């Protein structure tokens, strides 16, 4: 087995967790902190929205490092697809496949469900609305809560911050309500 073949297998949870925390410590060592959704605010500021809302009026150029990190993340996704992929579908549990099947989702054939992320689905009213509503709530909620998964669940919990614990509890309240109460209504 070559190194590329070895890396191309899906990674175990413990190795993935180790790598994520290594990224957090790399950024701390480079004098910054790990928080991805801050980029959303930076992009709004760079787009000149500081004229419309004070929240976006700050020296966004000090955050260029994080935008560069964002560009790297896009490249990383591309590299993983082109050079480090087995092409095998995500191996989720049989229970999840069964539950999602009842909602009309086929078993995984890749990384994402075609019913939501194919371009064909995007050009339907329902498909577009689901993606738009999902993004809107992620963006609004992340800023209201002062951070997303990287800022609160990884960085904040590592520093034993109570606000981050409350935010993570919120993430799960919202996630469970969507999964168990709203999914059956929309899918």
């Amino acid at each position: 087995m070559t190194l590329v073949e070895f890396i191309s297998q899906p990674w175990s949870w413990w190795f993935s967790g180790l790598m994520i925390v290594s990224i957090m410590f790399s950024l701390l060592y480079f004098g910054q902190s790990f928080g991805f959704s801050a980029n959303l605010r930076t992009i709004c500021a760079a787009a000149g929205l500081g004229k419309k809302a004070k929240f976006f009026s700050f020296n966004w150029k000090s955050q260029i490092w994080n935008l560069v990190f964002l560009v790297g993340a896009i490249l990383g996704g591309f590299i993983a697809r082109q050079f480090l992929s087995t092409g095998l579908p995500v191996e989720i549990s049989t229970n999840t496949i069964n539950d999602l099947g009842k909602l009309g989702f086929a078993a995984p054939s890749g990384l994402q469900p075609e019913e939501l992320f194919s371009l064909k689905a995007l050009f339907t009213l329902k498909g577009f609305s689901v993606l738009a509503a999902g993004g809107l709530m992620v963006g609004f909620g992340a800023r209201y809560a002062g951070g997303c998964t990287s800022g609160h669940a990884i960085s904040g919990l590592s520093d034993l911050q109570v606000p981050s614990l409350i935010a993570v509890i919120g993430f799960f309240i919202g996630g469970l309500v969507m999964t168990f109460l709203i999914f059956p209504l929309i899918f």
Partner: protein
Amino acid sequence: MKLIKFLLVGIVFGIVMTKSEAVSWFRIQEMFRFQAFHMYGIIGTAVILGVIGVALIKKFKIRDFHGNPILFHPKDKSIIRYLVGGSIFGLGWALSGACPGPMVVNIGYGYLSMAIVFFFALVGTYLYGYFKEKLPH
């Protein structure tokens, strides 16, 4: 050149997110249905190692590569903004199966629909900024 290191760390982040499958809507559904340990294992490992590392940085007053002390800033005390904001984030996370980082990783991977999700995440961020003073914090 100072920025190259952030590009490299970003590339590693994109690869890690993809190979861990944390960018998959299916994995997020599996997590919220409590039907596999995978996502809990990833986050749990990161947090446990993170707690140990942060404690060591504080205890030994470790400095960053500029020679400045690595500082951690306590977040503002509040319940409402974290609980309400977090819940709204969670609703969107379960629906789109992606938080902001995985959104852009998915775009790089080739799921162009995720660009719509990312665009609306920007709209959501703007709406928060616009209504910020009217929201309880």
